């Protein structure tokens, strides 16, 4: 953004965000233009490598003392890696009354070292199990009855016996899909407390080991054989084409279903909270972080206020396939699936932070966890070594 002030002086500034969400970003920019027609802006979508390119660009700019006005990233412990280069947006939170309209987890996770460092734009849900309706019907499985990880494993067995479809499709060319599957499985099987203890650095080794045992059973028997050579997009395609029954993913996967032709919610695909984690919403935030030494403090404040506003959150999230982080938003413009998600979000008993997307552990821990998945748990599945590695990685 560059502000065109009276008299023609301009304060330049730019915002950096992920490109995967191009359409959502366009909607966000259009809404911003409507709200602030006088402000010029420069929105740089950067894509590829699951935000890795974005991270690299941002890291270089911050390191070189040339920060963007704001950049998209995850709040929570992920903020630790930006130690010393983030400013504070307490005044934006206060003037916009964000504390009153955002869920408590958003309030907590956007603070670091006693100040607000970012503003949330939207939220994805992580503990999701999606399925292809006709495949589960053919197998005679009722997804809604799956309320434990062992019930899920039984259902996968049934799919394998009754149909030609892949019981659970998994794209494991990157390790992150397995790491996030670990998180949902641990939450569903070992419960909220065990999961939170794991994130907090006091893991119960037996719980971690039991989670990996279930994972080894799922990954060792019920996933597609080409898992290691495909990624999320191809894996998700197995659901759309009816080649697979289930997939675990964040609900960005549902964005692909909406874009697929003749593939409708409840008719062709369905959603089930990951077995065992009913009543919980594993949190993810898309947020805008505020660098200190900001090139355009005033306009950036305007933008941050806008990012947390209803207009921005509705414009962005309906295209991103995520939901507003405000609980006072009119959801009528969203489809039925996201409306349900928003309801789950607002009414959730617990909203545990995710493991793989910045909210649960600092980025270095996350890298260490993924190193463990890569070396011990990408087939063959070495339960003990993986459990030991995970416990070591998070332990304080």
């Amino acid at each position, binding site marked *: 953004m560059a502000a065109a002030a009276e008299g023609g002086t301009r304060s330049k500034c730019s915002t950096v965000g992920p490109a995967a969400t191009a359409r959502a970003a366009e909607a966000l920019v259009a809404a911003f233009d409507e709200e602030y027609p006088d402000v010029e802006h420069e929105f740089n979508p950067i894509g590829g490598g699951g935000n890795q390119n974005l991270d*690299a660009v941002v*890291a270089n700019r911050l390191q070189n003392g040339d920060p963007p006005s704001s950049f998209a990233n995850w709040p929570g412990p992920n903020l630790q890696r930006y130690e*010393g280069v983030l400013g504070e947006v307490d005044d934006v939170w206060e003037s916009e009354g964000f504390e009153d309209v955002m869920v408590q987890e958003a309030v907590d996770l956007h603070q670091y070292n006693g100040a607000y460092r970012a503003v949330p734009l939207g939220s994805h849900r992580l503990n999701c199990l999606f399925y292809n309706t006709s495949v589960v019907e053919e197998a005679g499985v009722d997804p809604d009855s799956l309320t434990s990880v062992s019930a899920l494993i039984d259902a996968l067995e049934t799919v394998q016996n009754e149909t030609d479809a892949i019981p659970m499709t998994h794209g494991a060319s990157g390790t992150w899909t397995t790491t996030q599957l670990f998180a949902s499985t641990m939450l569903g099987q070992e419960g909220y407390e065990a999961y939170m203890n794991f994130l907090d650095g006091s893991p119960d080794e037996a719980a971690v080991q039991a989670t990996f045992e279930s994972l080894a059973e799922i990954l060792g028997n019920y996933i597609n054989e080409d*898992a*290691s*050579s495909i990624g999320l997009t191809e894996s998700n395609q197995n659901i759309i084409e009816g080649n697979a029954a289930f997939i675990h993913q964040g609900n960005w996967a549902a964005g692909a279903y909406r874009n697929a032709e003749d593939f409708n919610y409840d008719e062709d695909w369905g959603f089930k909270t990951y077995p065992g984690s009913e009543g919980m919403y594993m949190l993810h935030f898309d947020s805008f972080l505020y660098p200190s030494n900001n090139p355009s403090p005033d306009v950036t404040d305007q933008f941050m206020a806008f990012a947390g506003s209803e207009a921005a959150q509705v414009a962005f999230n309906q295209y991103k396939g995520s939901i507003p982080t405000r609980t006072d938003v009119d959801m009528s413009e969203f489809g039925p699936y996201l409306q349900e998600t928003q309801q789950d979000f607002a009414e959730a008993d617990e909203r545990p932070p995710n493991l793989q997307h910045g909210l649960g552990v600092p*980025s270095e821990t996350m890298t260490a966890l993924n190193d463990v998945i890569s070396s011990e748990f990408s087939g063959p599945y070495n339960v003990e070594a993986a459990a030991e590695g995970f416990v070591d990685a998070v332990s304080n």
Partner: protein
Amino acid sequence: MTRNTDTGDDSGDALPDGGVAESGQRSGFSPVSALNERFGSDFVESSQFWLPPFLLVGLFVYGAIIWNLLISLTDFTGFGTPDYGDLDLEMYSRALADSGFVDAAINTFILLVGFTLVTLALGLGLAILIDRNIRFENTFRTIYLLPMSLSFVVTAQFWAWMFNFNNGVINIVITSLGFGRVDWIGNPDIVLWAVMFALMWQFAGYAMVVFLAGLRAIPDEHYEAAKVDGASTVRMYWRVIIPQLKGSTISASVVLMVFALKAFDFLYSLVGGYRPPNGADILATKMVREAYANLNWAYASAVAITLFLMTLGIVGPYLYYQYNRGNL
């Protein structure tokens, strides 16, 4: 800058020792003439041509390497400025204790040696075949060279599809031959060889062109003499022709080894991220991961320096060889 003909003539034909003494006596000490006499007749006068690029390369290449070395001796992480006051080799000892680093270094070395040797052999074979006055020679040459003109980003995606366990063309071929399917990407014992195979496919054409040029430079008489002496074709190539390809072999292998060290692009595109499949991590990917995922700048610099030393270990002897032959 005017040319001092006196000094120029002196240093041009006189022995350095005598020249220095003479000019010192004749015109007093002059830095220009001293430099000219030390480094050659036009050292100062020609500096306007070579000095700017010399300084630029010195600063941006060698300066950056030295700076990188300095950073690797600090404990620099996160944002801010490194503390140059406390330099030690901690990052290097950390690297040696890091099994991920050791694995990556071993993989880099295997890739380096294996890829280079096989590609050279394949390139030589192709070059000899093409050199047999076959029909459609140019067509074949183009076909073999074509993969090299493709970007790693493109070829990595090709190979990701071809290596697919279920519907990749490679597994389709080997199952139709009666063998079991192979998990090329997912099996940590195989993936490095699969990557090596893909790189070999891409660069064999380059080795072929280099060898072909070498073969064409060998006079026809050598072939004829070998035939007159009754040597078989195999024997002729083995004893007469291949020994004359030393220069081509050395220059091709240096380029290939440098490509092997840069396999980062291929691995990055193969999985769309900084973390290659288990068993295929190399120093380059490890370095980028440490730098940008963990912001461990000092540690990443130590990995970079290790990679640099490996490269130097390859290019150094080559430069020395060329220097001894008077090519530098």
